[in-house]
């Protein structure tokens, strides 16, 4: 089961900083990031792509968005 990083409720730029800290300690694999707004989603995606990760599925459920990120 993938590790979940829940950054809902955090204000910008904290969602990005939390995710960056997490992927620093994860060489590869698959992680789920939970955000609760469009801006955080875009910022997180931009940040992880700059670190060589790619975005898998992006799924909204109500106000929450689940982003799957991967690196081989």
């Amino acid at each position, binding site marked *: 089961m993938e590790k979940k990083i829940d950054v809902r409720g955090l204000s*910008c*730029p*904290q969602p*990005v*900083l939390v995710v*960056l*800290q997490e992927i620093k300690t994860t060489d590869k694999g698959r992680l789920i990031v939970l955000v609760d707004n469009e*801006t955080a989603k*875009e*910022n997180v995606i*931009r*940040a992880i792509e*700059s*670190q060589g990760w790619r975005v898998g599925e992006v799924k909204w459920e109500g106000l929450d968005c689940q982003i799957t990120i991967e690196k081989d």
Partner: protein
Amino acid sequence: MGLFDFIRLKPAKKVAGNKGDKKGNKVDRGFLVFENTSEVIRAEKVLKSEGWEVRVMGPPPEIQTGCDLVIEFPLIEELKILSTLQKAGVSPIKVVPVEHPLLQPVELFQLKDFGQYLMVRAANMKLTVEKESLKIVNVSGGGCPDVPYLAQELINKPLKEAPQPRDLGFTLCGYALQLAYEEMQRQFKA
């Protein structure tokens, strides 16, 4: 936060000058009105690179033409400044002596330390840098159409090597991001 929340009313300094307004008051500053923000940013860059002391300000409410920013300049240098701008292809649509208070951008930086990261907020824009690598890790805020592009161009670049936002963006957000960028540079020089 609104786009202009960082601009607050502050009376322009009255300094004795060599020109008078319609009421005979001495004025020594004027402002240049441009068609759009993009031209203001270009003109500021041109004038500063030529060594002129100019400032980007909010105009008084009675100015109905032009964009939401003007450039304040020393009125005594009007002809030389207009000539410089004309050569650069960015002439103002209007030149007005300062007779009324300008809406002046006041100190608008907010710093937040996140431990390994430092964030500088300038007006409506936030810039975050990792302290150890000095790489830009996040650009956010605004609401202008060029923010995603600015972010794309700046993120993951070392502060020293990153392009200047004013060279990439042509909106008020780009201008605010430039201020944040310059403040961040000052923080790490100190």
